[in-house]
């Protein structure tokens, strides 16, 4: 009996040992796998276009200072650390941050940027003899692409972690980190005493290693079984990895806050999230606050519980001082400092969600969703933060003003807009709605609305492409039209002033004043099919229904689609597919995909030049003349208003030399607003473009175009005697040949001509 029992006990023990060993081996396997391939799911990071500084750039010191502020550079007396600057009237001294670009790393530099009246004069670096020709400033992080609920982090290598942060973590969280082997009996004993005294769990007694294990695998409940498992794994972890590796993992893993659906993990991202700066620029107070959060990120949330967070921060600062990590003087300054938490931090997924949405959609054509959300890709985009800020501001202010002035219900108007760069198709700014921060319906991409008169330039382009039939001074008839459609309905367009009929009008004038009847007849003359083809050549990807009403904009398009078409006009007929991305690299900075500039011949140059000439007249005397209430009168620009039936949609699309802008204003429920393109969308377009110092439209005249002076009365070639003359571009060989009656070399006129020449 006894021996049997003994055997049974031995067998049990043996089984137990084997099972225990197997369990430990299993845990060992698990922890090594988890750690060896420390493969955190890191969302892709999205960056704005970097600011390029070079002699000759038109920018003043204030503007540079403003951009540095946006990037979280600190304004100081004498800049010495990366991410700081000083500004005087005509100079900015700064220390840039090192940054890993797609084409290599740029080191931190001390730069003296000197300005003169026209812009940047020189960029001097101490120890470098000549002015820099070109330097980049680290780009603004504008968001991340992550799963619906996700952990977000910005990985740090151990050597990137400032000493105060590393030592501070150890001091506060695990004093004996460097001497224990994963668990600390002393720590546990101390915690037990504290817990027994309090009658509940008040102290964890966990080492950094244990906390890391818990963050890796386990939930936060603290039952005994989990404690044991955690302790075993902590010991195993320490057997395999050295202290620095464990500490690095901890610094990247620990949970430090929540931003909507995004969990903020690690000190790298937390520094950006709370202070809008990299971890290397944290001061003592900021470092102490982040360490405080390791204890309980929601309990000590500095945005929600500032008093509590401050108490904890000051406690941590005291520990810093008592341990000699900081001097008494630093301590005094740090406890006196406010929390300094930025209201929107790095913005993460919050800043410019509509633009990031465009980027995400474009990327999903080339990358798997999972990779975008987990591989830590670095995405360099075309966003111009200054343009984006001005766009958002002028949409917000403009709509408020329009609502107030016109007695429109407050908050009922919505808007969408894009600003692109003319000569590359890069999207510089994008607004998906009135609220820039709102991550909802992206109207710029998804709201398809009738475009009204924005279709007209493509009707006139089609006509001007047939120089044997039409030129800018052709006579069109603005007269009533009634068409029975194949489906039995009747199409009977009206002018904007429903009763108006303007009779014979010149072609350019019909476009500039946006006459519907003349345009409808012209559309029929060139055929709706040809108009549809022109729209596609301009970059419209869908084939529009070739109906007569297409000429008046009976086609639903998104602002993005309209922007593509107008940008082809703006660049003289060359089509640049609109893009939001320049480069993508992997997490280490190795280039993966370049989204190079693509160019295609879209519309013929000569008719495009003529069409744009007429679109300039829109701003000079036509429906778009309101733009010069905002924009400097010497700035040439071309544009077109659009208004749809019942004032449901107000559009303005136009361009100067460097940018194209398309704005839509209306209501989400598609109800009338009472606003025309000129009263609803044009003010927003103009205010934004004025703020961005729109460059003058300055086309090169194609060699196949010739400028001819025409007698306004006869429409024939003008000469010495003509008094009412208009100078117009014609396609070579198709200008009127005959001279006007006034052009004759009458001697009396000749004398007058002599006087005129005297004046000149």
């Amino acid at each position, binding site marked *: 009996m006894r021996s049997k029992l003994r055997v049974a006990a031995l067998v049990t023990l043996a089984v137990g040992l084997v099972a225990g060993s197997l369990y430990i081996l299993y845990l060992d396997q698990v922890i090594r796998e988890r750690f060896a391939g420390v493969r955190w799911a890191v969302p892709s990071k999205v960056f704005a276009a970097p600011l390029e500084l070079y002699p000759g750039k038109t920018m003043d010191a204030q503007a540079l200072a403003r951009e540095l502020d946006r990037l979280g550079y600190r304004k100081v007396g004498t800049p010495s650390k990366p991410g700081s600057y000083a500004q005087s009237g005509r100079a900015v001294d700064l220390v840039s941050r090192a940054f890993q670009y797609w084409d290599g790393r740029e080191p931190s530099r001390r730069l003296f940027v000197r300005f003169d009246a026209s812009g940047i004069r020189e960029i001097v670096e101490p120890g470098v003899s000549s002015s820099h020709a070109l330097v980049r400033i680290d780009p603004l992080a504008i968001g991340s692409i992550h799963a619906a609920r996700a952990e977000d982090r910005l990985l740090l290598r151990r050597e990137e972690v400032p000493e105060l942060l590393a030592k501070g973590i150890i001091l506060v969280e695990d004093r004996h980190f460097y001497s224990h082997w994963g668990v600390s009996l002393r720590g546990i004993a101390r915690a037990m005493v504290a817990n027994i005294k309090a009658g509940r769990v008040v102290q964890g007694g966990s080492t950094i290693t244990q906390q890391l294990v818990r963050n890796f695998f386990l939930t936060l409940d603290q039952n005994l079984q989990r404690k044991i498992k955690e302790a075993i794994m902590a010991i195993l972890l320490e057997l395999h990895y050295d202290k620095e590796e464990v500490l690095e993992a901890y610094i990247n893993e620990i949970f430090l806050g929540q931003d909507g659906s995004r969990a903020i993990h690690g000190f790298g991202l937390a520094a950006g999230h709370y202070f809008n700066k990299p971890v290397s620029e944290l001061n003592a107070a900021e470092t102490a606050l982040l360490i405080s959060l390791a204890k309980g990120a929601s309990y000590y949330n500095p945005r929600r519980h500032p008093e509590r967070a401050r108490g904890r921060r000051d406690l941590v600062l005291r520990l810093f001082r008592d341990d000699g990590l900081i001097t008494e003087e630093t301590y005094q300054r740090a406890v006196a400092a406010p929390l300094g938490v930025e209201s929107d931090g790095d913005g993460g997924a919050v800043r410019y969600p509509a633009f990031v949405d465009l980027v995400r959609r474009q990327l999903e054509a080339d990358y798997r969703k999972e990779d975008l959300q987990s591989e830590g890709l670095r995405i360099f985009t075309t966003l111009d933060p200054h343009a984006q800020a001005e766009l958002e501001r002028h949409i917000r202010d403009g709509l408020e003003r329009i609502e107030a002035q016109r007695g429109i219900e407050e908050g009922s108007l919505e808007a969408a807009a894009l600003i692109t760069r003319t000569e590359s198709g890069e999207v510089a700014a994008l607004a998906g709605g009135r609220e820039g921060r709102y991550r909802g319906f992206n109207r710029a991409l998804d709201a398809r609305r009738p475009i009204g*008169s924005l279709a007209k330039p493509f009707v006139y382009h089609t006509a001007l492409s047939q120089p044997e039939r039409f030129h800018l001074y052709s006579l069109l008839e603005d007269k009533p039209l009634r068409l029975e459609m194949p489906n039995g309905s009747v199409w009977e367009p009206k002018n904007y002033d429903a009763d108006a009929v303007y009779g014979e009008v010149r072609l350019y004038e019909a476009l500039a004043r946006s006459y519907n009847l003349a345009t409808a007849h012209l559309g029929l003359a060139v055929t709706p099919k040809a108009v549809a083809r022109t729209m596609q050549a301009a970059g419209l990807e869908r084939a529009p229904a070739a109906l007569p009403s297409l000429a008046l904009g009976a086609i639903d398009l998104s602002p993005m689609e309209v922007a593509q078409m107008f940008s082809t006009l703006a660049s003289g007929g060359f089509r640049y597919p609109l893009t939001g991305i320049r480069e993508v690299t992997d997490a280490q900075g190795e280039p993966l995909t370049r989204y190079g500039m693509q160019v295609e011949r879209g519309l013929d140059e000569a008719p495009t030049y003529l069409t744009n000439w007429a679109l300039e007249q829109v701003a000079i005397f036509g429906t778009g003349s309101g733009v010069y209430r905002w924009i400097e009168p010497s700035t040439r620009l071309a544009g077109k208003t659009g208004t749809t039936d019942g004032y449901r949609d107000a559009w303005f699309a136009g361009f100067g030399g460097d940018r194209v802008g398309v704005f839509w204003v209306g209501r989400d429920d598609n109800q009338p607003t009472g606003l025309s393109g000129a009263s609803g969308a044009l003010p927003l377009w103009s205010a934004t473009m004025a703020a961005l110092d729109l460059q003058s439209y300055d086309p090169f005249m194609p060699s196949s175009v010739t400028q001819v002076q025409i007698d306004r009365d006869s429409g024939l070639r003008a000469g010495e005697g003509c008094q009412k003359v208009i100078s117009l571009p014609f396609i070579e060989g198709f200008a009127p040949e005959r001279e006007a009656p006034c052009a004759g070399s009458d001697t009396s006129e000749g004398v007058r001509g002599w006087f005129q020449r005297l004046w000149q």
Partner: protein
Amino acid sequence: MVSAPVAMTRGVLVVLSLTLGACGTLPQERTTGTVTGPSSSAPAQDEETATGQRQAPRDGTEVAIYQPPEREQPEALTEQYPRKVEEVSGPAVVSLVKQADQAAREGRPETAIAVLERALRIEPRNAFVWARLAEVRLQAGESQQAAATADRANSLARGNPYLEARNWRTLADARRQQGDTQGAQLARQQAEQARLRQTGGD
């Protein structure tokens, strides 16, 4: 009849025309582009009409009077066309083009393309950079984009025979690579014609 400011503006334009004349095109005559024609009193279609607040920028005159056209530029002036990127570009672009040239020489056309695109963001209509971009795209084997880029470069060349000859050569090679022998032949002829317009040879 003619008010002094108008005449003066036109005088400026004449001077401007002469200075730009070397480029083969004339600036658009804006003062005479006045538009107060027969239907000038008609209400604008889209606008709740003229607010009258705008200071008329360019149509301040009621009537413009015929002005004799500028004469054609003599051939000899083509000598003034710039031949090198340094002559027309800022230091940032010059330094980037040098970088790109180096990358292209070292057989890294992809890098050269990226660098030239960066240069174009600084000077978007620099025809020399466009011409170089077309050449490097050809080197990278992107014949279709090389052709389109050379086309764009030509439209910005403003008659510069040095640039046009380069662009047409790029077009000729790109078309040949695409199997368009006839198009390549035409482009070569264009290149030759442009070369003949060069005064000094290059």
